[in-house]
Protein backbone atom coordinates (compact mmCIF):
# COMPACT_ATOMS: atom_id res chain seq x y z
CA UNK A 1 0.00 0.00 0.00
CA UNK A 2 1.04 3.60 -0.56
CA UNK A 3 0.84 6.43 1.97
CA UNK A 4 -2.08 7.98 0.10
CA UNK A 5 -3.94 4.66 0.12
CA UNK A 6 -3.48 4.44 3.88
CA UNK A 7 -4.72 8.00 4.22
CA UNK A 8 -7.75 7.20 2.04
CA UNK A 9 -8.42 4.09 4.14
CA UNK A 10 -8.48 6.23 7.29
CA UNK A 11 -10.81 8.75 5.68
CA UNK A 12 -13.18 5.96 4.59
CA UNK A 13 -13.18 4.46 8.09
CA UNK A 14 -13.93 7.82 9.73
CA UNK A 15 -16.66 8.62 7.21
CA UNK A 16 -18.16 5.15 7.63
CA UNK A 17 -18.41 5.50 11.41
CA UNK A 18 -19.84 8.99 11.05
CA UNK A 19 -22.36 7.71 8.49
CA UNK A 20 -23.57 4.94 10.83
CA UNK A 21 -24.07 7.36 13.72
CA UNK A 22 -25.83 9.93 11.54
CA UNK A 23 -28.04 7.40 9.73
CA UNK A 24 -29.34 5.92 12.99
CA UNK A 25 -29.82 9.44 14.32
CA UNK A 26 -32.24 10.18 11.49
CA UNK A 27 -33.80 6.71 11.47
CA UNK A 28 -37.45 7.37 10.52
CA UNK A 29 -38.85 5.12 13.24
CA UNK A 30 -37.43 7.37 15.96
CA UNK A 31 -39.64 10.30 15.02
CA UNK A 32 -42.94 8.70 14.00
CA UNK A 33 -45.85 11.11 14.22
CA UNK A 34 -48.25 8.64 15.83
CA UNK A 35 -45.97 6.03 17.35
CA UNK A 36 -48.64 3.93 19.05
CA UNK A 37 -50.41 3.14 15.78
CA UNK A 38 -47.43 1.57 14.00
CA UNK A 39 -47.54 -2.23 14.31
CA UNK A 40 -44.46 -3.82 15.85
CA UNK A 41 -43.99 -6.12 12.83
CA UNK A 42 -43.83 -3.13 10.49
CA UNK A 43 -41.30 -1.50 12.80
CA UNK A 44 -39.15 -4.63 12.83
CA UNK A 45 -39.18 -4.86 9.02
CA UNK A 46 -38.23 -1.20 8.75
CA UNK A 47 -35.43 -1.59 11.30
CA UNK A 48 -34.10 -4.72 9.55
CA UNK A 49 -34.09 -3.05 6.14
CA UNK A 50 -32.42 0.03 7.58
CA UNK A 51 -29.81 -2.07 9.39
CA UNK A 52 -29.10 -4.00 6.17
CA UNK A 53 -28.40 -0.72 4.32
CA UNK A 54 -26.20 0.50 7.18
CA UNK A 55 -24.42 -2.87 7.28
CA UNK A 56 -23.70 -2.58 3.55
CA UNK A 57 -22.20 0.88 4.10
CA UNK A 58 -20.15 -0.34 7.07
CA UNK A 59 -18.84 -3.33 5.11
CA UNK A 60 -17.52 -1.21 2.25
CA UNK A 61 -16.32 1.82 4.19
CA UNK A 62 -15.09 0.46 7.53
CA UNK A 63 -14.48 -3.28 7.31
CA UNK A 64 -13.40 -3.90 3.74
CA UNK A 65 -12.23 -0.59 2.34
CA UNK A 66 -8.88 -1.62 0.84
CA UNK A 67 -10.16 -1.84 -2.73
CA UNK A 68 -12.07 1.42 -2.53
CA UNK A 69 -9.12 3.27 -1.02
CA UNK A 70 -6.65 1.93 -3.60
CA UNK A 71 -9.02 3.02 -6.39
CA UNK A 72 -9.38 6.46 -4.85
CA UNK A 73 -5.70 7.06 -4.11
CA UNK A 74 -4.25 5.62 -7.30
CA UNK A 75 -0.76 4.19 -7.75
CA UNK A 76 2.32 5.39 -5.90
CA UNK A 77 5.53 4.17 -4.30
CA UNK A 78 4.75 1.10 -2.21
CA UNK A 79 5.74 0.99 1.44
CA UNK A 80 7.48 -1.90 3.15
CA UNK A 81 5.27 -4.19 5.17
CA UNK A 82 6.57 -3.01 8.56
CA UNK A 83 6.33 0.68 7.61
CA UNK A 84 2.87 0.05 6.25
CA UNK A 85 1.65 -1.36 9.57
CA UNK A 86 3.11 1.60 11.46
CA UNK A 87 1.57 4.17 9.12
CA UNK A 88 -1.77 2.38 9.19
CA UNK A 89 -1.79 2.23 13.00
CA UNK A 90 -0.89 5.88 13.37
CA UNK A 91 -3.21 7.32 10.76
CA UNK A 92 -6.14 5.15 11.87
CA UNK A 93 -5.59 6.16 15.47
CA UNK A 94 -5.54 9.86 14.63
CA UNK A 95 -8.72 9.48 12.57
CA UNK A 96 -10.57 7.44 15.16
CA UNK A 97 -9.63 9.73 18.05
CA UNK A 98 -10.84 12.64 15.95
CA UNK A 99 -14.25 11.11 15.27
CA UNK A 100 -14.51 10.07 18.94
CA UNK A 101 -13.85 13.63 20.09
CA UNK A 102 -16.41 14.96 17.62
CA UNK A 103 -19.04 12.54 18.95
CA UNK A 104 -18.32 13.46 22.56
CA UNK A 105 -20.28 16.77 22.89
CA UNK A 106 -23.57 15.13 21.90
CA UNK A 107 -22.88 12.15 24.16
CA UNK A 108 -22.09 14.19 27.25
CA UNK A 109 -25.70 14.44 28.57
CA UNK A 110 -26.00 10.65 28.20
CA UNK A 111 -22.76 10.07 30.12
CA UNK A 112 -23.98 12.37 32.92
CA UNK A 113 -27.36 10.60 32.99
CA UNK A 114 -25.65 7.20 33.10
CA UNK A 115 -23.52 8.33 36.03
CA UNK A 116 -26.67 9.60 37.74
CA UNK A 117 -28.24 6.14 37.29
CA UNK A 118 -25.74 4.69 39.79
CA UNK A 119 -27.33 6.87 42.46
CA UNK A 120 -30.84 5.90 41.41
CA UNK A 121 -30.34 2.12 41.34
CA UNK A 122 -31.09 1.65 45.03
CA UNK A 123 -34.29 3.69 44.91
CA UNK A 124 -35.42 1.95 41.73
CA UNK A 125 -34.84 -1.53 43.17
CA UNK A 126 -36.65 -0.50 46.38
CA UNK A 127 -39.59 0.76 44.33
CA UNK A 128 -39.80 -2.52 42.43
CA UNK A 129 -39.55 -4.67 45.59
CA UNK A 130 -41.86 -2.65 47.83
CA UNK A 131 -44.57 -1.46 45.47
CA UNK A 132 -44.16 -4.41 43.05
CA UNK A 133 -44.72 -2.07 40.14
CA UNK A 134 -42.50 -0.70 37.40
CA UNK A 135 -40.96 2.64 38.44
CA UNK A 136 -41.62 5.70 36.31
CA UNK A 137 -38.03 5.82 35.11
CA UNK A 138 -38.54 2.46 33.33
CA UNK A 139 -41.96 3.25 31.93
CA UNK A 140 -41.04 3.97 28.33
CA UNK A 141 -42.33 2.94 24.94
CA UNK A 142 -40.08 0.76 22.78
CA UNK A 143 -39.38 3.83 20.63
CA UNK A 144 -38.03 5.66 23.67
CA UNK A 145 -35.98 2.59 24.59
CA UNK A 146 -34.55 2.61 21.06
CA UNK A 147 -33.52 6.24 21.54
CA UNK A 148 -31.99 5.47 24.95
CA UNK A 149 -30.09 2.52 23.48
CA UNK A 150 -28.86 4.60 20.53
CA UNK A 151 -27.64 7.42 22.80
CA UNK A 152 -25.96 4.96 25.16
CA UNK A 153 -24.21 3.04 22.36
CA UNK A 154 -23.10 6.31 20.77
CA UNK A 155 -21.59 7.45 24.08
CA UNK A 156 -19.81 4.09 24.47
CA UNK A 157 -18.52 4.31 20.91
CA UNK A 158 -17.24 7.86 21.51
CA UNK A 159 -15.36 6.78 24.65
CA UNK A 160 -13.90 3.70 22.93
CA UNK A 161 -12.73 5.79 19.98
CA UNK A 162 -11.19 8.43 22.25
CA UNK A 163 -9.22 5.63 23.91
CA UNK A 164 -7.75 4.90 20.45
CA UNK A 165 -9.81 1.81 19.54
CA UNK A 166 -6.80 -0.55 19.93
CA UNK A 167 -8.70 -3.76 19.12
CA UNK A 168 -10.17 -2.33 15.95
CA UNK A 169 -6.77 -1.03 14.79
CA UNK A 170 -5.13 -4.41 15.47
CA UNK A 171 -7.88 -6.18 13.58
CA UNK A 172 -7.71 -3.71 10.70
CA UNK A 173 -3.92 -4.12 10.32
CA UNK A 174 -4.17 -7.90 10.49
CA UNK A 175 -6.99 -7.87 7.97
CA UNK A 176 -5.24 -5.49 5.54
CA UNK A 177 -1.89 -7.26 5.68
CA UNK A 178 -3.66 -10.61 5.40
CA UNK A 179 -5.49 -9.44 2.29
CA UNK A 180 -2.23 -8.30 0.75
CA UNK A 181 -0.56 -11.59 1.60
CA UNK A 182 -3.40 -13.46 -0.08
CA UNK A 183 -3.11 -11.21 -3.13
CA UNK A 184 0.63 -11.72 -3.51
CA UNK A 185 0.50 -15.36 -2.44
CA UNK A 186 3.14 -14.86 0.26
CA UNK A 187 1.96 -16.16 3.61
CA UNK A 188 3.34 -14.19 6.50
CA UNK A 189 3.19 -16.07 9.83
CA UNK A 190 3.58 -12.85 11.82
CA UNK A 191 0.10 -11.72 10.74
CA UNK A 192 -1.45 -14.43 12.90
CA UNK A 193 0.58 -13.28 15.86
CA UNK A 194 -1.00 -9.83 15.63
CA UNK A 195 -4.18 -11.31 17.06
CA UNK A 196 -2.90 -10.55 20.53
CA UNK A 197 -0.72 -7.63 21.28
CA UNK A 198 2.21 -8.67 23.51
CA UNK A 199 2.78 -6.88 26.79
Amino acid at each position, binding site marked *: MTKMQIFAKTVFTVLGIYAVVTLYRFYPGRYAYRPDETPIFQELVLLSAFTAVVGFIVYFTVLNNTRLSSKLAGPGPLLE*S*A*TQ*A*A*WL*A*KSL*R*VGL*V*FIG*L*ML*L*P*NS*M*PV*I*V*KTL*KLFFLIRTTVNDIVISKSIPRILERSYREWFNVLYDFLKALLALYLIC*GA*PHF*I*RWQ*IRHTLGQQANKTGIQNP*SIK*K*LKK*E*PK
Partner: protein
Amino acid sequence: MNNIHSFTKVILSAIGIFFAIRIISQMLMPLGLARMNPSLESVAIAIAATLFFGLCLAVICYAFVYKREQLAKRIIGTNELPEADSQILWLPAAFRLICVTAGLYCLYAVLWNVVYNLMQYFSFKPDAAQSGYKVMYTPKILNIEQILSWLIMLAIGIYLVCGAPHFVRWQVRKTLKQCKAFEKIRQ
Protein backbone atom coordinates in the same frame (compact mmCIF):
# COMPACT_ATOMS: atom_id res chain seq x y z
CA MET B 1 8.69 26.28 6.53
CA ASN B 2 8.33 22.53 6.10
CA ASN B 3 5.57 20.17 5.05
CA ILE B 4 4.10 19.89 8.53
CA HIS B 5 3.76 23.66 8.79
CA SER B 6 2.11 23.97 5.40
CA PHE B 7 -0.25 21.10 6.22
CA THR B 8 -1.09 22.64 9.61
CA LYS B 9 -1.78 26.03 8.03
CA VAL B 10 -4.14 24.49 5.51
CA ILE B 11 -5.96 22.51 8.19
CA LEU B 12 -6.24 25.57 10.46
CA SER B 13 -7.73 27.64 7.64
CA ALA B 14 -10.18 24.82 6.89
CA ILE B 15 -11.17 24.67 10.57
CA GLY B 16 -11.67 28.44 10.65
CA ILE B 17 -13.81 28.46 7.52
CA PHE B 18 -15.88 25.47 8.70
CA PHE B 19 -16.75 27.10 12.03
CA ALA B 20 -17.28 30.51 10.42
CA ILE B 21 -19.85 28.99 8.06
CA ARG B 22 -21.60 27.21 10.93
CA ILE B 23 -21.73 30.38 13.02
CA ILE B 24 -22.94 32.56 10.13
CA SER B 25 -25.70 30.08 9.31
CA GLN B 26 -27.01 30.26 12.87
CA MET B 27 -26.23 33.86 13.73
CA LEU B 28 -29.68 35.20 12.90
CA MET B 29 -31.57 32.37 14.59
CA PRO B 30 -31.94 34.22 17.95
CA LEU B 31 -33.51 37.20 16.15
CA GLY B 32 -35.92 34.86 14.40
CA LEU B 33 -36.91 33.30 17.73
CA ALA B 34 -37.33 36.75 19.29
CA ARG B 35 -39.76 37.70 16.52
CA MET B 36 -42.10 34.95 17.70
CA ASN B 37 -42.61 36.72 21.01
CA PRO B 38 -41.24 40.24 20.82
CA SER B 39 -40.87 41.06 24.50
CA LEU B 40 -38.11 43.33 25.78
CA GLU B 41 -36.17 40.48 27.38
CA SER B 42 -36.26 38.20 24.35
CA VAL B 43 -35.20 41.01 22.00
CA ALA B 44 -32.36 42.03 24.35
CA ILE B 45 -31.16 38.42 24.63
CA ALA B 46 -31.43 37.97 20.85
CA ILE B 47 -29.34 41.07 20.18
CA ALA B 48 -26.79 40.01 22.82
CA ALA B 49 -26.63 36.48 21.35
CA THR B 50 -26.20 37.79 17.81
CA LEU B 51 -23.43 40.15 18.93
CA PHE B 52 -21.77 37.31 20.82
CA PHE B 53 -21.95 35.07 17.74
CA GLY B 54 -20.46 37.94 15.73
CA LEU B 55 -17.63 38.30 18.24
CA CYS B 56 -16.93 34.55 18.09
CA LEU B 57 -16.91 34.76 14.29
CA ALA B 58 -14.42 37.63 14.39
CA VAL B 59 -12.15 35.79 16.85
CA ILE B 60 -12.22 32.58 14.79
CA CYS B 61 -11.51 34.41 11.52
CA TYR B 62 -8.69 36.38 13.15
CA ALA B 63 -7.06 33.37 14.84
CA PHE B 64 -7.57 30.65 12.23
CA VAL B 65 -7.40 32.55 8.94
CA TYR B 66 -5.48 35.79 9.49
CA LYS B 67 -3.04 34.61 12.17
CA ARG B 68 -2.82 30.99 11.06
CA GLU B 69 0.94 31.11 10.62
CA GLN B 70 1.55 32.08 14.24
CA LEU B 71 -0.98 29.52 15.42
CA ALA B 72 0.71 26.82 13.32
CA LYS B 73 4.06 27.76 14.85
CA ARG B 74 2.57 27.47 18.34
CA ILE B 75 1.10 24.07 17.57
CA ILE B 76 4.13 22.59 15.79
CA GLY B 77 6.89 24.46 17.61
CA THR B 78 9.81 25.97 15.68
CA ASN B 79 9.52 26.15 11.89
CA GLU B 80 13.13 25.04 11.51
CA LEU B 81 12.21 21.39 11.92
CA PRO B 82 13.66 18.84 9.53
CA GLU B 83 11.36 17.41 6.88
CA ALA B 84 8.83 15.00 8.24
CA ASP B 85 10.37 11.79 6.96
CA SER B 86 10.29 10.39 10.42
CA GLN B 87 6.82 9.21 11.27
CA ILE B 88 7.09 10.39 14.85
CA LEU B 89 7.28 14.08 13.98
CA TRP B 90 3.84 14.50 12.51
CA LEU B 91 1.99 12.49 15.14
CA PRO B 92 1.85 15.04 18.02
CA ALA B 93 1.04 17.79 15.54
CA ALA B 94 -1.84 15.78 14.10
CA PHE B 95 -3.20 14.94 17.55
CA ARG B 96 -2.93 18.57 18.63
CA LEU B 97 -4.76 19.71 15.50
CA ILE B 98 -7.63 17.32 16.02
CA CYS B 99 -7.80 18.37 19.68
CA VAL B 100 -8.10 22.03 18.72
CA THR B 101 -10.81 21.18 16.17
CA ALA B 102 -12.74 19.03 18.63
CA GLY B 103 -12.35 21.69 21.33
CA LEU B 104 -13.83 24.33 19.06
CA TYR B 105 -16.67 21.99 18.20
CA CYS B 106 -17.27 21.38 21.92
CA LEU B 107 -17.37 25.10 22.69
CA TYR B 108 -19.62 25.68 19.70
CA ALA B 109 -22.01 22.95 20.94
CA VAL B 110 -22.11 24.49 24.45
CA LEU B 111 -22.71 27.97 23.06
CA TRP B 112 -25.41 26.72 20.73
CA ASN B 113 -27.20 24.74 23.47
CA VAL B 114 -27.10 27.59 25.99
CA VAL B 115 -28.29 30.24 23.52
CA TYR B 116 -30.98 27.98 22.06
CA ASN B 117 -32.40 27.01 25.45
CA LEU B 118 -32.29 30.55 26.80
CA MET B 119 -33.96 31.87 23.67
CA GLN B 120 -36.66 29.24 23.87
CA TYR B 121 -37.26 30.08 27.51
CA PHE B 122 -37.52 33.82 26.91
CA SER B 123 -39.42 33.55 23.64
CA PHE B 124 -42.08 31.41 25.26
CA LYS B 125 -42.02 33.23 28.56
CA PRO B 126 -45.36 32.49 30.13
CA ASP B 127 -48.01 35.00 30.91
CA ALA B 128 -51.28 34.31 32.65
CA ALA B 129 -52.84 32.75 29.55
CA GLN B 130 -49.82 30.58 28.62
CA SER B 131 -48.93 28.82 31.82
CA GLY B 132 -48.43 25.57 29.90
CA TYR B 133 -45.23 26.86 28.35
CA LYS B 134 -43.69 27.38 31.75
CA VAL B 135 -44.27 23.72 32.52
CA MET B 136 -42.92 22.69 29.13
CA TYR B 137 -39.69 24.70 29.06
CA THR B 138 -38.69 25.35 32.66
CA PRO B 139 -37.41 21.81 33.38
CA LYS B 140 -35.17 21.95 30.28
CA ILE B 141 -33.43 25.11 31.49
CA LEU B 142 -33.20 24.32 35.17
CA ASN B 143 -32.27 20.68 34.69
CA ILE B 144 -29.16 20.07 36.78
CA GLU B 145 -27.97 17.25 34.51
CA GLN B 146 -28.04 19.49 31.47
CA ILE B 147 -26.23 22.34 33.21
CA LEU B 148 -23.64 19.88 34.54
CA SER B 149 -23.08 18.41 31.08
CA TRP B 150 -22.66 21.95 29.65
CA LEU B 151 -20.09 22.76 32.32
CA ILE B 152 -18.16 19.53 31.65
CA MET B 153 -18.28 20.21 27.91
CA LEU B 154 -17.07 23.76 28.48
CA ALA B 155 -14.14 22.51 30.57
CA ILE B 156 -13.28 19.81 28.00
CA GLY B 157 -13.61 22.33 25.16
CA ILE B 158 -11.24 24.83 26.80
CA TYR B 159 -8.74 22.05 27.59
CA LEU B 160 -8.84 20.76 24.01
CA VAL B 161 -8.53 24.23 22.47
CA CYS B 162 -5.43 24.78 24.62
CA GLY B 163 -3.87 21.78 22.85
CA ALA B 164 -4.69 19.09 25.45
CA PRO B 165 -1.00 18.42 26.28
CA HIS B 166 -1.59 15.46 28.62
CA PHE B 167 -4.06 13.81 26.28
CA VAL B 168 -1.73 14.29 23.28
CA ARG B 169 1.26 12.90 25.20
CA TRP B 170 -0.79 9.90 26.31
CA GLN B 171 -2.08 9.22 22.78
CA VAL B 172 1.39 9.54 21.22
CA ARG B 173 2.91 7.25 23.85
CA LYS B 174 0.19 4.63 23.34
CA THR B 175 0.43 4.83 19.55
CA LEU B 176 4.21 4.43 19.53
CA LYS B 177 3.93 1.57 21.99
CA GLN B 178 1.43 -0.16 19.72
CA CYS B 179 3.69 0.37 16.69
CA LYS B 180 6.71 -0.99 18.55
CA ALA B 181 4.69 -4.05 19.48
CA PHE B 182 3.88 -4.63 15.79
CA GLU B 183 7.53 -4.22 14.83
CA LYS B 184 8.64 -6.70 17.52
CA ILE B 185 6.17 -9.28 16.27
CA ARG B 186 7.28 -8.88 12.69
CA GLN B 187 11.00 -9.25 13.49
